[in-house]
């Protein structure tokens, strides 16, 4: 329990010079707080992206054109063939979409919004849910019905408190009847469903956006495919690739004129980015702790000089080299650990503060491992940077030290 005594002595010595101790610890405090907060934000962002992706399901493929508008060859026919259950029994939902931006008008209120032409299958491949009314169905498609389903924010922008169902809204040049309103998704923050209007695919391709033709079929901007859980996603991806290359008449060695996007690979990407970010921030943290540690060393050297007389006295009273060494190391350790603990507290405070801001999109997730690591690293810094001043203290000649004023 001798070490407790040394720590007690160290703590009281630190208490004697409160302002100086605080300023000394500031390097460690800021270093630890900065690293933990930024790591917490990175972590929170990664969690949020992962949650979004998992909400949509990881057994999703999204095919889009690789050539940009104009050169695209992805058509309604591709979607029709991929949606053939006898050919592709594992594709439980195939949803082509054609989207654009246009103006929606209702009683003089006009709103610029994203309009997506989709089929009823879209409901199976996305996270949207109907709050009131219904979603688009196959009958709307075959009859070319001018009906629309509105995202929740869009509905309130256009109709305010009034009931939108059964009302008409002008989209582009035509009047559409609102048949459904979606629940607030709140899910994806990067691409909101809440401000989107959904209309039947054919109407979007013809009346609204006049999609170009390829081999007599209208183009689509993307085809989302939900694969049944038992079927490997990589296999599904290969199936889609083979089918589309055949349909587009690509020869061996030709590049794909489409790209397939896999949700699982997005998850891997998110995890990779998060790891890279953690390593980077950890590095910055190590540098700031180095700077903080040098500050501690500086002050410990001053302390040793100031207390030369005390060291001489302790020598006379029977202190060994070891006792002097441990005393000053303990002081550096207490300074660093105290700084570390304050830094951890500060990072939690900042985290709580940021999370309290409604507009701040990320829940800050501070890791227990990161906290422990930060405290361990500050202790290591204390030993490393406290060692030299402590060794200097042990090398003082007792006679000289006692004479020192």
């Amino acid at each position: 329990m001798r070490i407790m005594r040394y720590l007690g002595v160290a703590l009281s010595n630190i208490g004697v010079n409160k302002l100086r101790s605080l300023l000394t610890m500031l390097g460690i405090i800021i270093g630890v707080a900065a690293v933990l907060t930024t790591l917490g934000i990175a972590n929170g962002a990664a969690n949020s992206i992962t949650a979004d992706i998992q909400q949509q399901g990881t057994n999703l493929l999204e095919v889009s054109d690789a050539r940009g508008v104009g050169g695209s060859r992805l058509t309604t026919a591709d979607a029709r063939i991929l949606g053939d259950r006898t050919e592709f029994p594992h594709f439980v939902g195939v949803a082509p979409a054609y989207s654009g931006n246009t103006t929606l008008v209702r009683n003089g209120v006009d709103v610029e919004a994203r309009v997506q032409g989709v089929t009823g299958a879209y409901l199976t491949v996305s996270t949207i849910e109907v709050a009131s009314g219904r979603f688009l169905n196959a009958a709307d498609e075959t009859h070319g019905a001018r009906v629309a389903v509105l995202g929740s924010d869009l509905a309130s922008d256009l109709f305010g408190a009034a009931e939108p169902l059964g009302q008409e809204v002008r989209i582009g040049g035509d009047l559409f009847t609102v048949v459904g309103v979606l629940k607030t998704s709140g899910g994806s923050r990067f691409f909101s469903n809440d401000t989107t209007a959904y209309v039947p695919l054919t109407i979007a391709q013809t009346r609204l956006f006049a999609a170009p033709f390829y081999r007599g079929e209208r183009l689509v901007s993307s085809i989302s495919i939900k694969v049944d859980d038992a079927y490997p996603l990589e296999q599904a991806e290969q199936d889609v690739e083979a089918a589309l290359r055949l349909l587009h008449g690509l020869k061996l060695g030709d590049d794909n004129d489409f790209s397939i996007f896999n949700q699982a690979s997005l998850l891997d990407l998110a995890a990779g980015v998060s790891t890279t970010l953690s390593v980077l921030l950890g590095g910055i943290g190590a540098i700031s702790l180095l700077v903080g540690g040098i500050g501690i060393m500086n002050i410990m050297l001053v302390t040793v000089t100031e207390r030369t007389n005390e060291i001489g006295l302790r020598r006379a009273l029977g202190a060994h080299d070891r006792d002097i060494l441990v005393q000053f190391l303990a002081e550096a350790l207490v300074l660093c650990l105290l700084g570390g603990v304050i830094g951890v507290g500060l990072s939690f405070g900042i985290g709580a503060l940021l999370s309290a801001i409604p507009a701040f999109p990320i829940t800050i997730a501070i890791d227990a491992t990161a906290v422990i690591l930060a405290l361990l690293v500050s202790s290591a810094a204390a030993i490393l940077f406290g060692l030299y001043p402590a060794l200097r203290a042990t090398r003082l000649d007792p006679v000289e030290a006692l004479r020192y004023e």
Partner: protein
Amino acid sequence: MNEPMPLQSTSSTPVIALDSVTKTYQMGEVAVHALRGVSLTVQRGEYVAIIGASGSGKSTLMNIIGLLDRPTHGSYRIRGQEVSRLSKSAQADIRNREIGFVFQRFNLLPRTSAQAQVELPLFYAGVTGAKAKRRAVEALTRVGLAQRLDHRPDQLSGGQQQRVAIARALVTQPSLLLADEPTGALDSKTTAEILDLFDALHAQGLTLVVVTHEHAVAARAARVITISDGTVVSDASTRQKEE
């Protein structure tokens, strides 16, 4: 090391015995002879003053007696044990156990209670807790400060501070109390009080060596050793109190 173990408890063994001790400092090319062969013994229960002008070598002698410095040549025994060639660490243990230091400037720790000051040497002896507290209180009672246990140096007068320092020197029950100009920072009234305390401690059987340049202080000792130019020039009993 709960209780100091007598090295050799024969009453005839001197507490300290220096034989032909020299100390030479090398100042660049010049060798400074601080001590030129000092031999002296102090018996158990003696009260000895070492007096000399500044530069006489008395401080060097005191540092060697206190094991804060090593002689260049010669032998130094404490209670029969040769100590001048011991390791730094072994010397620290002997200092802790055998020698109680009293300094001119008291050398108390700032912002520390009297009791904690007195417990400090016990901490280095491995004695802590209730036992250390009891012994510290005993030592402070012995110097008349039983009512000042919780006082910090800035709450005590100079004389009281020196009493705390004396209690700190006594708490390990050393063989020798070594005082370096103990009254140098005190007024004449307080000086008398401290010297009376020394007399009382001497009467209780404590061995004292007081290093001073003041004849009035030295006169209180039973034996006065005069140092000049690195040698003992006189060693005389002032009073015929010794057996």
